[in-house]
C-alpha cells in the first residue's frame, strides 16, 4: 500500500531544464509545486568543487552524472524484424540523472530554431513538391510558429545568460561582419551577453569558410562571457575556457544549468518542494482515463508513494517521457505496421559527421582550452538555406569548430594509418596534439515510419516494469545528407591548409552504432502537432487524451533539428507554461 502524500497543485516528473522552467513559471502563478527527481541532489558545491571536478576518469569515463543502467535501461534494435537487446553500457547517448538532469552535464550550445524546421513538411512540399519526400519519411510540422515562440526564445536566453552575436534585432541588421549569422531569424532583443572570445582553431575555420564564400558566425553559447545576473536574480561567473563542460558540473557558475540559473530562485519560494531519489513509476489516471490524479513513485527508502496533483508535468528525459506515457496508458501506443497510434511515433536522433584536420608544427590549435558552447559555425547548409532539389535529400546541417577541450583518456585524434599504441603512436601524439582542429557537421535527422519507441516484450527494469524499446536505423536519406555535408566541410577543412585530414562519416549500409558517442540529442516519441491522429500532444504540449498532463521536452519534436535542441526545449516549455497560466488555470480542459 502506497503512502499517500497531501495533494499538491502540480507535480513535476524530472528536474532538468523543462522541469525547472515549469516549476518556476507555475510557482510564480501561485501554484504549489512538487518536483520529483529520481537521481540525487546535485549542485555546484559540492559536485562541481574545483579542482576535483576536473576529472575525466570520474565524470566522462565512469559517467558520474549519467543514468545508472543497472536499474533501468532501454533495449535497442535496428529493424522491426530484429530482437532488441538492452543497452548495457552508455555509448551513443548519455541521459542525465540527478538534479539538473542533462541540463547539468550539457555543453551549452544554445540555439533558437530555424523557422523552416518548425514547419518542415509543409515547407518541403511547398518548395520541392509532395513527391520529394521519400516513402516512409514521416516528418511533420510542430504546429507552432517561430513568431509565436520568439518571446520565449528571448526570455530563455536571458535566463540562460546566453552569449552570442545577433544578426538582426527588430528588423535592423546589427551583426554584419561582427559574427552574426545572416541565416538566423530576426530577434526582439540582442543576446544578453556578447559572444565569447574566439579560440584560434575556430578563427581558422571561420577564415577558411569566409574564403569559400560562406558566412561564419559566433556560436550562441550558454557559457557566460562575463559576470551575469538573470531575470530571476541568479548569477553566473565568466567562463575561463577550462574545457570541462560536457559531462561535468561547471565549477565556475559559467555554464547555464537548472541548478545555477533557476533552482536558487525556486529555493526562495515556499510553494516549491524538490524531492530527490524519487523514481516515478507511473502517472495515475482517473477511472475514465481522461484526467490524471497524480503520480506514484518509489522514494529513497524503496517505499511506494502516491503524490496526488491537479496537474502532472512529464519533464523527464526524452525517452522517459514516452515510456511513462506508455506505462500509464496515456494516449494510444504507436503501431508501425498500421501507422495508427501516436505514443512512440517519430523517434529521431542527430546525424553527425566529423573531420579532424592535422597541421604542421607552426599552426597551433590550443586544444587544451575550450568551452562547450563556444565556436564558429556556418549555416550555409543548414535547414533549407540551400537548394535541396539537386542534392536529393531532406535535412540540413550547421558546421562548426566547437572546441570543448580535448582530454587525454577519451582519446587524441591522429591521422589515418597511425598505430593505436607504441612509440609510433606516442610520436604522433607529440607531433599532432596541439596542432589538430576538429570540426563537425551536426546534421538534422528525419523521422520515419519504422523508427519508433515501444515497450519491450522481454526486458524489465528493477521495479519489474517493461523497458522502453528503441527501433532505429539510418536510412538512405540520412546517409546521403551526411555524406553531402562531409564533402562541403572537407572543402572548408582543405582551405585551412592542413597536412592531413581524417573524415568520420557514415557510409551506405551503415547501421546505428550504439557504442560510439554521437550526441544525446534524442527527439520525438511524444510529438506535438495540430492533428491528434498524428501527434501525442497538442501545440501547447498538452496530452490530447489526458488534459491535465503536459509533456515538455525534446520528446515533443516531430523530427531532429540541425541545431542543438536545448534552446527549443526551453522556449517550448515557456510557451506551454504561458498557456497553462493564462488559459488552463482559468478553465481546465483541452487547450486545442
Amino acid at each position: 500500500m502506497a503512502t499517500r502524500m497531501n495533494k499538491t497543485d502540480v507535480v513535476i516528473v524530472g528536474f532538468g531544464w523543462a522541469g525547472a522552467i515549469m516549476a518556476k513559471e507555475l510557482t510564480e502563478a501561485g501554484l504549489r509545486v512538487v518536483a520529483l527527481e529520481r537521481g540525487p541532489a546535485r549542485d555546484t558545491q559540492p559536485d562541481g568543487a574545483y579542482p576535483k571536478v576536473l576529472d575525466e576518469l570520474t565524470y566522462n569515463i565512469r559517467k558520474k552524472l549519467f543514468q545508472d543502467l543497472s536499474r533501468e535501461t532501454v533495449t535497442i534494435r535496428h529493424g522491426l524484424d530484429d530482437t532488441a537487446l538492452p543497452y548495457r553500457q552508455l555509448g551513443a547517448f548519455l541521459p542525465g540523472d540527478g538534479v539538473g538532469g542533462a541540463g547539468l552535464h550539457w555543453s551549452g550550445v544554445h540555439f533558437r530554431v530555424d523557422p523552416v524546421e518548425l514547419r518542415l513538411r509543409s515547407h518541403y512540399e511547398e518548395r520541392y513538391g509532395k513527391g520529394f519526400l521519400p516513402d516512409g519519411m514521416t516528418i511533420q510540422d510542430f504546429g507552432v510558429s517561430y513568431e509565436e515562440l520568439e518571446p520565449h526564445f528571448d526570455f530563455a536566453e536571458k535566463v540562460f545568460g546566453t552569449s552570442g552575436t545577433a544578426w538582426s534585432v527588430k528588423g535592423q541588421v546589427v551583426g554584419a561582419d561582427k559574427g552574426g549569422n545572416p541565416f538566423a531569424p530576426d530577434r526582439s532583443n540582442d543576446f544578453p551577453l556578447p559572444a565569447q572570445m574566439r579560440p584560434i582553431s575556430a578563427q581558422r575555420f571561420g577564415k577558411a569558410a569566409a574564403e569559400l564564400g560562406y558566412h561564419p558566425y559566433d556560436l550562441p553559447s550558454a557559457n557566460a562571457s562575463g559576470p551575469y545576473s538573470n531575470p530571476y536574480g541568479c548569477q553566473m561567473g565568466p567562463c575561463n575556457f577550462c574545457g570541462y563542460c560536457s559531462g561535468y558540473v561547471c565549477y565556475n557558475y559559467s555554464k547555464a544549468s537548472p541548478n545555477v540559473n533557476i533552482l536558487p530562485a525556486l529555493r526562495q519560494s515556499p510553494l516549491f518542494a524538490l524531492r530527490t531519489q524519487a523514481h516515478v513509476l507511473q502517472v495515475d489516471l482517473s477511472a475514465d482515463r481522461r484526467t490524471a490524479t497524480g503520480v506514484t513513485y518509489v522514494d529513497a527508502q524503496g517505499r511506494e508513494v502516491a503524490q496526488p496533483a491537479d496537474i502532472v508535468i512529464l519533464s523527464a528525459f526524452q525517452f522517459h517521457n514516452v515510456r511513462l506515457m506508455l506505462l500509464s496508458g496515456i494516449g494510444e501506443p504507436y503501431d508501425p505496421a498500421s501507422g495508427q497510434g501516436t505514443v512512440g511515433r517519430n523517434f529521431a536522433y542527430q546525424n553527425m559527421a566529423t573531420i579532424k584536420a592535422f597541421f604542421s608544427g607552426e599552426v597551433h590549435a590550443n586544444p587544451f582550452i575550450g568551452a562547450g558552447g563556444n565556436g564558429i559555425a556556418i549555416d550555409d547548409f543548414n535547414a533549407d538555406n540551400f537548394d535541396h532539389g539537386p542534392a536529393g535529400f531532406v535535412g540540413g546541417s550547421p558546421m562548426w569548430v566547437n572546441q570543448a577541450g580535448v582530454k587525454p583518456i577519451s582519446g587524441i585524434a591522429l591521422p589515418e594509418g597511425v598505430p593505436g599504441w607504441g612509440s609510433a603512436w606516442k610520436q604522433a601524439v607529440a607531433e599532432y596534439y596541439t596542432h589538430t582542429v576538429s570540426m563537425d557537421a551536426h546534421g538534422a535527422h528525419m523521422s520515419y515510419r519504422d523508427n519508433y519507441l515501444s515497450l519491450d516484450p522481454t526486458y524489465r527494469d528493477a521495479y519489474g516494469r517493461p523497458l522502453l524499446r528503441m527501433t532505429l536505423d539510418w536510412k538512405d536519406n540520412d546517409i546521403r545528407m551526411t555524406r553531402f555535408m562531409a564533402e562541403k566541410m572537407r572543402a572548408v577543412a582543405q582551405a585551412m591548409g592542413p597536412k592531413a585530414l581524417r573524415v568520420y562519416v557514415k557510409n551506405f549500409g551503415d547501421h546505428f552504432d550504439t557504442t560510439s558517442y554521437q550526441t544525446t540529442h534524442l527527439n520525438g516519441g511524444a510529438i506535438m502537432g495540430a492533428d491528434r491522429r498524428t501527434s501525442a500532444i497538442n501545440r501547447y504540449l498538452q496530452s490530447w487524451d489526458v488534459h491535465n498532463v503536459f509533456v515538455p521536452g525534446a520528446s515533443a519534436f516531430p523530427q531532429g533539428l540541425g541545431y542543438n535542441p536545448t534552446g527549443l526545449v526551453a522556449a517550448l516549455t515557456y510557451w506551454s507554461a504561458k498557456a497553462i497560466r493564462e488559459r488552463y488555470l482559468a478553465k481546465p480542459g483541452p487547450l486545442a
Partner: protein
Amino acid sequence: MKRRWPLQRLKRLLIGLVVLGALGFLAVLGYAFWPTHTRAIAAPASAADAALIERGRYLALAGDCTACHTAPGGKPFAGGLALASPIGAIYSTNITPDRRTGIGGYSLDQFDRALRHGIRADGASLYPAMPFPSYARLTDEDVRALYAYFLHGVVPVAQADRSPDIPWPLSMRWPLALWRKTFAPSPDAVAFDPKRYPDERVARGAYLVQGAGHCGSCHTPRALTLQERALDESGAQYLAGNQIIDGWNAINLRGNPADGLGRWSEQDIVETLRTGRNPHAAVVGSPMADVTVHSMQHLADADLHAIAAYLKTLPPVPGAGPGFAANDATAKALQAGINDSRGAELYVDNCAGCHRTDAKGYSRVFPAIAGNPTVLAREPDSLVRLILGGSSMPATVAAPSALGMPGFGWRLGDAEVAALASYLRSQWGNQAPPVASGLVARIRAEMPGENHASEEAAHAR
C-alpha cells in the same frame, strides 16, 4: 617572649581579614541580590493593535531574534538553540506566547525588564548572551511594539526551556547580577538621543546599529570581563572587529581603508546587507551569512541606507594596522608566468581561475582579494578557515545564488595554507602580517575531518 607579639598580631590580622572578607562577601552578595528597580513603561492603548504588532515584527527582524531563539529545524522562537560558552552550553529560551513554557504570562514590564535590563521574571539575571546592553537603547515605544508582536503576532509553542549544561557552582546565577550591574547600562542613562548625530538618517542608522541590530555583540572587541569595550561611537574600539565568532572573524566596520569599510561606499554596505555581496567583496562565513538571510535582507531600503550612513561616520581605529595601496606588480608578474614563490604557485594553481591573476575577481560573483577586508583583517582566522573549508554566500531573495568557494584543506598542508594566506595578505598592494602555520593547524583541528590534509598532501609537505 618577643615571638608572641607577631603571633598575636597575625591572629588579629587574620581574624580581621576574615571578618573583612565576610563583610565584603556579604556586601557583594547584597549588591548582587539587591533588587534592581526599573521604570515601568506605559502600556499601549491596545497591545493587539495591528500596526504596533507589525512594527514589532519588523524590529524582531532587525534584531534577528530568531538567530538565537529558533533552533535548527525547530518552531519559530521556541528556543532550544545551544550557545557555547567556555563553561558549558546554555540554551536559548522559548519566547513564544505559550503561557506555560513561553512568555505568554509576561507583563509588559516583565518583558521590558528582560529585554532592556537583562532580568528574568523571577528576578534572576540573564546570561549576557542576550544582548540586553544593546537593547537598553530601544525606545519605550519599540519595547511596546516588540511586546505586542511576541504576544500577539507569534504562534505559541509549548516547549520547555532547557537548563544550561554548566556545572555547579558555576551555574549559580547571582554572580551574573554583578556583571549586569557593573557593565550593563541603565536604559534611562543611555536613552537614545538622535540629536547627537548630524542628521536624522545617521541617527536612525545609529539607533539600529547600537540597539536592535546589536552589531557590537560580534563586531566590538570585548574586555577580559567580557563586556563590549564600547556600546556606541564614543569609544574608539566600537565595531573595531577582530572578534572570532564560531571560528569566523567579525571584521572591523570602522573607516580603516584596508581592513575596515573605509573604501566601501554606502551602496556597497547596503548591497552587502541585502545580498551578502557587493561589486568587490562578499560575506564570508556562517555567522554574518545567517544575519543577512534572517535579518538584514528584510529591512527597508531606507533603514539599510541609514545603517550604512552611520557606519560611514565611524573614523578609523587609530594606530598602525593593515594597509592597502593598489599595485599591479603582482598581476604583471603572474601574467608574465613568473611564479617565484610557493605562495604564487599555490595562488595560480588554486585561486586564479576565479579570482584572476589581478586578484580583482568578477563583480558580485567572485570577490576581489586585493583590498578585501576579510583578507587584510588583523586576525586572519576567516581567511585561513575559508581556504581550508570554503564558504558560500548567503542566498537572499534579491540574490538567491549561494555562490560558493570550495575548501582546499584536503589538498593543502598547514605550511602551504600559511604560505598562500601570507601571499594573499602581501600582494597586489595588500599589506598585512604573514600567517603562521601554527594558526592554520589550530583552525584545522577545530574543523570537520574532510578539511584535514590528505595523506598525499601531508606527504607533499
